[in-house]
C-alpha cells in the first residue's frame, strides 16, 4: 500500500511537469488549431536557459532567491523565444492549409533540436542544485523537496494562469480568439497580439517545467523535449485539446499511469503507455475527457 501511495506521489510530481507543458499545447491549439511540435523543444530551451543562468549565479549558496531568479529568467527568455517562433515561422503560414502549418512546426522543432545540439553540445549536462534540499516523510511515503517544489510551483502557475484567462481583459480576448478567430478580429480584438501573448504564456510555462525537471532529474540534453513534448501533447488530447483544466487533468493522468507502468510492469514500456492511452482516447473519445464534439459544417 505504501509503495502504491509513493507511486502516486511520484506520478503527481511527474504529471505536474506534463501538465505545465500540456497547457502550452492546448492554448496554442485553442487559438491556431495547430499542434505546436516545437513546444517540447521550448521546454528543453527553458531547462538550458535555467542551467546557464544558475551557472552564472554560482558562488552563492543554494538559496530560494537564486532559484526564483533562475526560474523567472528562464520563463522570460522562453516567452521571447516563443513569440519569435510564432512571428517568423507560424505567422507567414497561418492562412495556409493546416498541413503546411503542421510541417512548418515539425521543421521548427527539428531546427531547435539540431541547433541546440550544435550550440550546447550533444552530451547531457548536469543541472546544479538551486535550493537547499530536504526529504519529508508522511508515514512510509517520502516526498523530496524537489517534488514538493514541482507540485507547489505548478499549482501556483496554474492558478495564476486561470486568473489571467478568466479575469483579465487580455485573457477574455484570448478566449474569444480561441472561440472564433475571425469573429474576434471583427470585434476589434488584435488577434496577432493575442496569439503572440498565447505563445509567450505557453512558452513561459514550458520553461518553468524545464527548470523544475532540471532541479529534479539533474540531467538535461538537447533532445529531452521530444518525449516530454509528445507525452504532454498526449496529456492535452486526453484532457480535451483546447481545454485548460483538461490539460492539467490529462498531465496528471499520464504522469501517474507512466509511473505505475514503470513501477509494476517494465521500464521499457515507459514511452509506449502514453501512446497507448492516446490511441485509446482518440478511438473511443476523440474529444478528450473534458472536450466538446465539433462537427464539420456541410
Amino acid at each position, binding site marked *: 500500500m505504501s509503495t502504491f501511495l509513493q507511486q502516486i506521489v511520484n506520478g503527481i510530481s511527474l504529471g505536474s511537469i506534463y501538465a505545465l507543458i500540456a497547457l502550452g499545447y492546448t492554448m496554442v491549439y485553442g487559438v491556431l488549431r495547430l499542434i505546436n511540435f516545437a513546444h517540447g523543444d521550448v521546454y528543453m530551451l527553458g531547462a538550458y536557459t535555467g542551467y546557464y543562468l544558475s551557472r552564472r549565479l554560482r558562488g552563492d549558496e543554494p538559496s530560494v532567491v537564486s532559484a526564483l531568479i533562475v526560474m523567472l529568467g528562464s520563463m522570460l527568455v522562453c516567452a521571447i523565444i516563443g513569440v519569435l517562433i510564432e512571428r517568423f515561422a507560424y505567422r507567414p*503560414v497561418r492562412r495556409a492549409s493546416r*498541413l503546411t502549418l503542421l510541417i*512548418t512546426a*515539425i521543421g521548427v522543432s*527539428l531546427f531547435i533540436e*539540431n541547433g541546440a545540439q550544435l550550440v550546447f553540445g550533444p552530451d547531457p549536462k548536469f543541472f546544479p542544485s538551486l535550493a537547499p534540499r530536504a526529504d519529508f516523510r508522511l508515514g512510509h511515503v517520502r516526498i523530496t523537496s524537489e517534488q514538493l517544489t514541482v507540485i507547489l510551483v505548478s499549482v501556483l502557475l496554474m492558478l495564476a494562469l486561470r486568473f489571467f484567462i478568466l479575469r483579465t481583459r487580455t485573457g477574455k480576448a484570448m478566449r474569444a480568439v480561441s472561440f472564433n478567430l475571425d469573429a474576434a478580429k471583427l470585434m476589434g480584438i488584435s488577434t496577432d497580439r493575442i496569439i503572440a501573448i498565447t505563445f509567450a504564456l505557453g512558452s513561459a510555462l514550458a520553461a518553468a517545467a524545464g527548470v523544475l525537471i532540471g532541479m529534479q532529474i539533474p540531467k538535461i540534453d538537447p533532445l529531452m523535449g521530444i518525449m516530454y513534448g509528445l507525452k504532454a501533447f498526449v496529456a492535452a488530447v486526453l484532457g480535451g485539446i483546447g481545454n485548460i483544466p483538461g490539460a492539467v487533468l490529462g498531465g496528471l493522468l499520464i504522469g501517474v499511469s507512466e509511473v505505475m507502468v514503470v513501477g509494476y510492469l*517494465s521500464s521499457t514500456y515507459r514511452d509506449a503507455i502514453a501512446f497507448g492511452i492516446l490511441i485509446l482516447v482518440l478511438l473511443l473519445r476523440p474529444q478528450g475527457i473534458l472536450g466538446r464534439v465539433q462537427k464539420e459544417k456541410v
Partner: protein
Amino acid sequence: MKRLAIAAGVVAGLWVVNGLLSGTLVPGVSISPYFLQVLCLAGINIILAVSLNLINGFTGQFSIGHAGFMAIGAYASAYVTLTFGDRIRGVLTFLPEAGRSGALLLVGLAVGALLAAFAGFLVGVPSLRLRGDYLAIVTLGFGEIIRVFILNIDAVGGARGLSGISKLANFFWIYLFAAATILVVSRLVRSSFGRTLIAIREDEIAAEAMGVDTTKSKVISFVVSSALAGVAGGLFAHYLMYIHTNSFTFIKSIEIIIMIVIGGLGSITGSVLGAVLYIGLTEGLREFAQYRMVLFSFLLVVLMIVRPQGLLGHREFLQFLPRRWRLGADAPAGGG
C-alpha cells in the same frame, strides 16, 4: 507480349548496371563502394517516399508512422531469412547461387510486406476515421509502439539489435523494387480507385456524397503503402546486414516526410526527386554533419513559407517539359 518484353528489358538493364557499378561484370570497372551504398540507400528511400506519398500526397491523410511499418518489414524478413534461410536454400538446390539468394530474399520480402500490410490494416481501420493532425499524432504513436514492442522481443535481438543477416539485397534488387513501387503507385493513382483517393484529398465529404466508400479507399491506400514500406525495410535489413530499432524511430518517419514535402505532396516524380535530393544532400554535407540537419530544418520551414506545395506540387516532372518533348505521350512518368 510487349509488357513482358519491357519487363525483361528493365530486369536485364538493371542487372547490367548492377554488374558495372559493383565491378562484377567488367573487371576493373566499378564505382567506389561508398558511392554504391549511397545509391542503394537512395533507392530504398525512393520506395519509402513514393509509398508514403500514396497516403500523404494522394489520399491527403497525414501519416507520420511510416518507419514503424518499415521496421516490421525489416525485422520480419530478416527473421525469416535467418531462421529458415538454410531450409529454403536446401529446397532450391537446382538453382544457381544467385538465384537461391534472390529467391530467399523474395520470400523474406513477401513475409515482411504481408506483415507490414496486416499491421497497416490494424492501424488503419480505427485511425483513418480521424482527420488531419489527429491522424498524424495517432500514426506517430502507433509507429513508436511498434518500435517499443520490437525492442522487447528477444527473438529478434531486443535492445542488442539483429545481426548476422545475409547480404541478399543489392543495387539490382533495390532498384527493381523501386521501379515496381513507382509502377504500382502510379497505376493506382491513375485508375478509378486512385481517383477516389484524390477525391478524398480534395473534399472528403463530397467524395462520400458521390458514393465513394471513403473508409475502404483510405484503408486500402494505407495497407498498400504499409506493404511497400515493409518491402523497403526488408531491403534495408538485407543490405546493411544489421538492424536496430534506433533506425526506425519517428525521426526516420519525419525524414521520409521531408523527402515527399520537398518534392511535392501528390507527385510521384517529386517523391523520387525528394528522396534523391535528401540523400544527396545528407551525404554531400557529411563533412558538415553537425550543421546539415540545422540547414535542412531551416530550409523546410522556408519551403513551407515560400512554396508550400513543394518543388513539383501536384504535377509530375514530365508535365514541366515543353509539350513537344513529351514524344506525344501525355502520360506522366512511370506509366506502363
